[in-house]
């Protein structure tokens, strides 16, 4: 649930980028990091392996400033995609207000996508969260690769999007679709603000 702290007048939203390894979750955060003015963002923290793959998670805090009297902050996290970091993924996912599932559009990654998407459902269920209640969007990344290598958004829809959540074709390296994805998931998260259950002190 997005945290609305009326005492300190803060809104804090935690958005987690989920998906298989090397699907471009960190690239999403890096692009956002480059686009957000330095004054509005904290340091992007990455705990990465030597092979440049996310070992634990990336964390990027963004300060959107005062909105309607509330200091609004976004905390963007990525999870490590590799199968064996299951427990880390659970930990990072805890308390997520919204989830972006970053799928790798390459045809040969279809199985990994499905497996990771299933893992997301499982992780949410373990935390007692009904996946239908969590703001979720799908991002089909790497759509810039040659067409014979990648599945089209329609194909990926058929493969993954049985919940009919919003989807975005993206090229996280180049930035296409990155902010569109963030904007949509933020909107879904923030629309839930007025729900009394989200109000804490």
């Amino acid at each position, binding site marked *: 649930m997005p945290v609305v702290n*009326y005492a300190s007048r803060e809104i804090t939203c935690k958005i987690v980028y989920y998906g298989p390894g090397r699907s471009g979750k960190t690239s999403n955060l890096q692009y956002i990091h480059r686009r*957000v003015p330095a004054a509005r963002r904290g340091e992007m923290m990455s705990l990465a392996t030597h092979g440049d793959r996310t070992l634990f998670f990336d964390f990027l805090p963004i300060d959107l400033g005062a*909105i309607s009297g509330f200091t609004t902050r976004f905390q963007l996290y990525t999870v490590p995609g590799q199968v064996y970091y299951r427990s880390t993924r659970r930990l990072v996912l805890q308390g997520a207000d919204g989830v972006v599932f970053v799928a790798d559009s390459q045809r040969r990654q279809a199985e990994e996508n499905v497996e990771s998407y299933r893992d997301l459902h499982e992780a949410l269920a373990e935390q007692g969260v009904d996946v239908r209640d969590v703001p979720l969007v799908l991002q089909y990344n790497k759509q810039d690769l040659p067409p014979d290598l990648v599945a089209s958004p329609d194909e990926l829809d058929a493969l993954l999007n049985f919940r009919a959540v919003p989807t975005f074709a993206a090229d996280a390296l180049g930035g296409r679709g990155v902010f569109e994805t*963030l904007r949509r998931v933020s909107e879904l998260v*923030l629309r839930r*603000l007025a729900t009394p259950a989200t*109000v804490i002190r």
Partner: protein
Amino acid sequence: MLDGRFRFDTFVAGPSNRLAVSAARAVAEAPGQAYHPLFLYAESGLGKTHLLAALGFHATQVDPGLVAGYREAGEYAEQLEAAAGRGDLNAWRREWESIRLLLLDDVQFLEGHAEAQAELLRLIDHAQARGHQVVLASDRPPADLDGLDQRLLSRMSGGLIADIAAPDLDTRLGILHLWRSIRVVDLDDAALDELSRHEVANVRELLGLFNRLVAQRALEPGTPAAGIARVLLAQALDERPPAPDEFESFLNEVTAVVASSMEQWRVRLAATVARWAGEGYRTDALEPFLDGNEPPDLDAVEARFAGAVTQLRDLEQEAARLDPRLAGVSVFRDPQRVDEARAIVMRALAAYDPPPAAADHLTIDNLSPGARNQLALRAAGEVIALPGSRYNPLFLHGPPSSGKTHLAHAIANALVARDGAWTVAVVDAAALGDELIEAMRTGELERWRMRYRAADALIVDNVQFLAGSDRLQDEFFHLFNTFVDGGRQVVLTADVPPQRLAAVASRLQSRFEAGLVVEIGRVSEAEAVARYTPVPLGDEAAAPTIDAWFDDMGEPEPARATFLQPAATGDAFFLDPEKVVSEWPSMDGRVIEDPR
């Protein structure tokens, strides 16, 4: 331009430019037969000029006798102007009409050149009639060329329009491989692969990266080129100018969503909280409302808070006037602690401008005890022992010169003696009225109030002088309540019991009666005679003058006389002689009534 520097074999075809390249080849193979005209468009740096020049060169290779001409549209317009100026327009036209393959670049520069447009229109028509070929290039499709003649636009659109898009991955890779072979540089495929991953807006950007890679590679011959490429790309990404307003538009969107998602009353309250907090006030009193699910009465809540802030400001000002060290004390920034702030100011007032105190010489010890004041003395003793909790108020009444004032002052002195830190306000009701009028006149009413409220006990002499002034009674009513409700002792004196206080509000009378009402009897003749003269200094009240004594003697006590004679009607309770107590052996737990 058509000298072979730009050729088809140095132009990498790919999905982004395939149509344009194949059309150009077709035109070059057979000018005037395929497309009338061919219109190529692309943003700057994507290869329009290269393709035009390659087309021209190739066509002259295929047919060496072909007369081909390349011009930039701006140059074309200038030459036309010059020819017109010289007056040999016809010669100029003949020269252009003889060109069988006309390549006109950047036709967007014809915007605003009406004559050049008209000439071009004529030329295109002429070329079509003669089977000549016209190839045009622009940075926009014909439909977007605003300043061109409609007829010219329709001619331009009549053949084939082909665009050249930014190079895709394959094209970028092809370009890089081509450059590597042309420049003969030592870069492995991995480095080119890495570089090709970088999306560029135009080929020149890619060339810039390629050149940097080559230069960097020369500096670090031992480092794998792919690694250098990665670093270069990371730098390039950082250097890339931010997409216009990408973050701003995101921010606007989020702002709109928050504004529409948050209930408006919360937004308003949050803004109020932010404003007061910004002015340095604690907003604990407002914040709990934000937690609620139901909107509070915002106007009332905000007005209450603003009222408290106003009080705090006044109090702080007063406090700072009395003692500059008190300015800025945190209590003056907390609207939930107005009472505390007021107490601070009152303490400051007590220290710097104390209320009037008792006359030092009027003590219990120099009162003469006797039957007439036995009860009053005993009550005074109880009040001194347990101020505020035993008899509050203690109402002493008796005829003039019976020693009421002396006893009241004596109680005050005893209270101060009991606790040196105490402030006991002792004031005559007539003086209190004068002070009130003065305070109202000078606008220091609040200060006047606080000055008395700061005291630990209040002793008001001659409350019969409250009579006649509603305002004074109002003020006194609040002052009295402040003391009694706060468990602070009040001692009052009057010449008559409460019920007989003329022109005093009943609410005051009833409150006076709620404590202990004690009469001090008149000074007996024997006592008066026994008193020596001259009267000791300051003891005039306790030792009346002979004149006063005679005055007293001349006044009977009507209330007592009336009461002792049973009334014709009325409640039998009040007629019970046993309820009328005139001598008081002990007061413990007894209802005390004054004979009326």
